[in-house]
């Protein structure tokens, strides 16, 4: 069968030749029939293979099509997002005009520095308008309306509203309050490029998206209807969103004007009403002031325009009013106002919580300061616990993003130092913000905060532990890191938050394990050193070298090291003794840094076992027949270690831990202190 496939599949396959060969080769009809069935089955195989291939192709095609559809959807979303952003920016720009106007009308001009900026903006605005007037022939005066601004302009094709056939090319300008349509001039001489055609007031204009004609939209300016076609969908959407933004901001301006007028009227009617009430007690139902009636709408506008503080103060004003005048208003109306007010409070809370919510696409560069406003208002709305939750989430996020910047390469200790510094630095900042700025005098929030810090510090320690407790870490490295962490942690204590217990708790288990590991390792090293020790005085080759050692030990606090000197460069202590004392001192130092009541047992065990191991080896050396001649030097070393070195070590130990009579000292003394001296007397 394989040979069949091979021969048929060859490029120079010739059916005649193949059949000839076959008929020559085959004997009798049976074999030929056999060959025939072979060929047939091959045909069937190839058939199914072909089908499969076609099927696979289809699947691939379908997959590709799906991918493309997805992509298209994504592109659409993207463009949608972009137009949304554009409209948002626009609304921001236009709303800033609005607030400018209001602040002016409300006689609340914000200081001098703003006026300068205003002047520049104003100049630009006027310049732009004059420019447009120059370009459009027969244009009306555009500058006469204060705060008019050009929001959008562009070329469009006008279509016949009935037949949808192109009529003319036009250029359209959208201003904050009007829309101007101008036709193209055929002869372009001078600055004018368009001829003024018509002007529409935005408040009498409606814009409609035309779904079934590509890229077009309608302007309904009753009774006229004009249809325009934009060059592409993006530009059309631009126009639609620009129109919408313009209309909305215009309406909000009108509302604002109205409400500010209302406010003035209310104040007047209020005072009148008070007088009336005192004179005419028979008026059973005093009329509600208008601002209460418009309360819901005003709040909506304020929330939409993100004047949260104003909304909040209006809410509290309304609450106060309801409280004071509750008995004068009929219950049904009061109920209605209350539910409306409740709804608006909810809406405001929702907006503010959204503001605080952590989302991946929001940047946290603003940090906590950015959250202050929302938190403050939420607090005033009695939503402290919600605000607290969200604020802590923001904090977590901030902490996370700050810690992300700490580089994880390089030496472990530098990383730990930096990491801890960033963590505690940020935490201190957060604590300050939380306890003094965001939630002062709120015990419930404070306890939530403490829980949060504990959680964060635990997470922090988990990460640090991963970095610190890797197999080859030396105790001095560890103690250095832990010292830094403790020091940083101490700074937080000034704010009344002591995290040391948490940190020590997290450190206990891995630290115990490390200490035990180091103990085993050190003992192992001692064993190796003794196996190599020949008990010879240490030859330092030169006098200077020896002086150095003497100086080193004097610095450690040993007073009479010179007495061990012998000859020019010899010292009666063995190299092993010197190394051991050095190692042990280092170990002791690190242990004392780490010393805490939790770890006291483990550390004591380490100090004891290491020392005991060394002494045991000295003991066995004394009994060793090979060292009979060296017994003198062994005793000298043993004495140094047991009399001078041991008591020195535990002087240091006591001074650091405050434990005047450490148990291990007495234990070591009683176990080893006596035996060698007895032996020495015996030998001497």
């Amino acid at each position, binding site marked *: 069968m394989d040979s069949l496939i091979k021969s048929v599949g060859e490029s120079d396959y010739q059916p005649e030749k193949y059949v000839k060969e076959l008929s020559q080769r085959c004997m009798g009809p049976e074999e030929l029939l056999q060959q025939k069935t072979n060929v047939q089955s091959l045909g069937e195989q190839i058939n199914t293979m072909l089908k499969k291939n076609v099927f696979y192709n289809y699947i691939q095609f379908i997959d590709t099509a799906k991918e493309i559809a997805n992509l298209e959807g994504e592109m659409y979303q993207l463009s949608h997002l972009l137009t949304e952003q554009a409209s948002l920016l626009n609304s921001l720009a236009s709303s800033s005009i609005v607030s400018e106007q209001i602040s002016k009308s409300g006689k609340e001009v914000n200081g001098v520095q703003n006026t300068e900026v205003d002047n520049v903006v104003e100049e630009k605005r006027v310049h732009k308008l004059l420019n447009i007037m120059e370009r459009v022939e027969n244009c009306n005066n555009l500058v006469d309306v204060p705060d008019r601004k050009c929001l959008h302009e562009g070329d469009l094709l006008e279509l*016949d509203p*009935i*037949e949808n056939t192109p009529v003319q090319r036009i250029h359209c300008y959208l201003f904050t309050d009007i829309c101007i349509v101008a036709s193209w001039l055929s002869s372009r001489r001078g600055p004018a490029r368009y001829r003024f055609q018509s002007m529409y007031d935005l*408040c*009498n*204009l*409606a*814009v*409609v*998206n*035309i*779904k*079934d004609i590509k890229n077009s939209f*309608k302007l*309904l*300016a*009753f*009774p006229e*209807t004009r249809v325009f076609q934009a060059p592409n969908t993006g530009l059309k959407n631009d126009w*639609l969103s620009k129109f*919408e933004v313009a*209309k*909305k901001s215009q*309406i909000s301006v009108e509302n604002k004007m109205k409400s500010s007028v209302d406010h003035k009227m209310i104040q007047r009617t209020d005072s009148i009403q008070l007088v009336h009430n005192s004179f005419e007690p028979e008026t059973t139902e005093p009329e509600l002031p208008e601002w209460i009636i418009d309360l819901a709408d005003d709040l909506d506008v304020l929330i*939409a325009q993100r004047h949260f503080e104003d909304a909040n103060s209006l809410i509290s004003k309304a609450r106060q009013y309801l409280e004071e005048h509750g008995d004068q208003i009929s219950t049904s109306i009061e109920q209605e106002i209350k539910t409306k007010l409740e709804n608006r409070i909810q809406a405001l809370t929702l907006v503010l919580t959204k503001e605080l919510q952590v989302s991946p696409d929001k940047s946290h560069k603003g940090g906590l300061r950015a959250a202050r406003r929302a938190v403050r208002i939420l607090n005033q709305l009695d939503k402290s616990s919600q605000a607290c939750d969200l604020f802590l989430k923001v904090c977590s996020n901030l902490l996370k993003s700050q810690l992300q910047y700490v580089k994880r390469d390089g030496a472990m200790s530098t990383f730990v130092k930096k990491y801890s510094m960033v963590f505690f630095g940020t935490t201190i900042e957060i604590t300050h913000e939380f306890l003094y700025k965001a939630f002062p005098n709120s015990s419930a929030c404070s306890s939530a905060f403490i829980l949060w810090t504990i959680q964060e510090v635990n997470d922090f320690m988990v990460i640090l532990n991963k970095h610190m407790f890797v197999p080859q870490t030396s105790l001095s490295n560890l103690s250095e890191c832990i010292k830094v962490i403790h020091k940083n942690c101490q700074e937080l204590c000034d704010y009344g938050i002591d995290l040391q217990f948490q940190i020590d708790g997290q450190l206990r288990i891995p630290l115990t394990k490390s200490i035990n590991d180091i103990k085993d390792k050190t003992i192992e090293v001692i064993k190796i050193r003794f196996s190599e020790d020949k008990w010879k005085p240490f030859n330092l080759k030169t006098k200077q070298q020896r002086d150095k050692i003497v100086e080193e030990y004097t610095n450690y606090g040993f007073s009479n090291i010179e007495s061990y000197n012998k000859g020019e460069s010899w010292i009666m202590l063995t190299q092993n003794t010197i190394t051991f004392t050095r190692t042990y001192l280092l170990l002791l130092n690190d242990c004392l840094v780490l010393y805490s009541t939790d770890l006291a047992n483990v550390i004591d065990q380490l100090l004891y076992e290491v020392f005991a191991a060394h002494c045991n080896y000295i003991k066995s050396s004394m009994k060793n027949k090979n060292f009979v001649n060296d017994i003198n030097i062994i005793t000298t070393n043993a004495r140094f270690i047991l009399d001078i070195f041991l008591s020195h070590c535990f002087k240091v130990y006591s001074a650091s831990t405050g434990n005047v009579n450490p148990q291990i000292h007495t234990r070591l003394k009683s176990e080893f202190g006596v035996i060698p001296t007895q032996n020495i007397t015996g030998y001497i």
Partner: protein
Amino acid sequence: MKKNNAQQPALHKVIMVGSGGVGKSALTLQFMYDEFVEDYEPTKADSYRKKVVLDGEEVQIDILDTAGQEDYAAIRDNYFRSGEGFLCVFSITEDDSFQSTMEFREQILRVKNDENIPFLLVGNKGDLTDKRKVSLNEAQSRAQEWGVPYVETSAKTRDNVDKVFFDLMREIRARKKEDVKGANGKGKDKGRRKKLKCNIL
């Protein structure tokens, strides 16, 4: 503008009104393209045009699908102005949407300044009988009060979808004929309208 009114089929301008999410766009799309759109995306203002045969006569219908959302309330006037007939849609599963038909009706009457503007009250989502909140009686009595027809539709099952559009076009057509007559014999029309108004009251 070309003066070929004889060639051009008559154009009837229909406006869809009603609260957000009641199915104005769904009705429109079902009528336009025979499809039911499940996903909800608030409309701002979309317009559609279609050639249809109304009682043997070819006409064009221009549908303006408006925004139901409250934030567009203030700019609705300008849209309503251009309409010749209104489909006021509510969802039979949502009482709020039924209540707000009052506001829409008032606004339309105010803008058009005409008590007899072609107008249909449409209760949509008729297929969701198990979620019905607005009874047939309630809706019918309100329609009667206003002197307008009430039809229940389902944009999903296409129930009565064509009917509401065609019924409204018939009313618009009748109104236009009447207006032409009225324009011929001035004054008569006004009197008639006033009379009708009295009837309703």
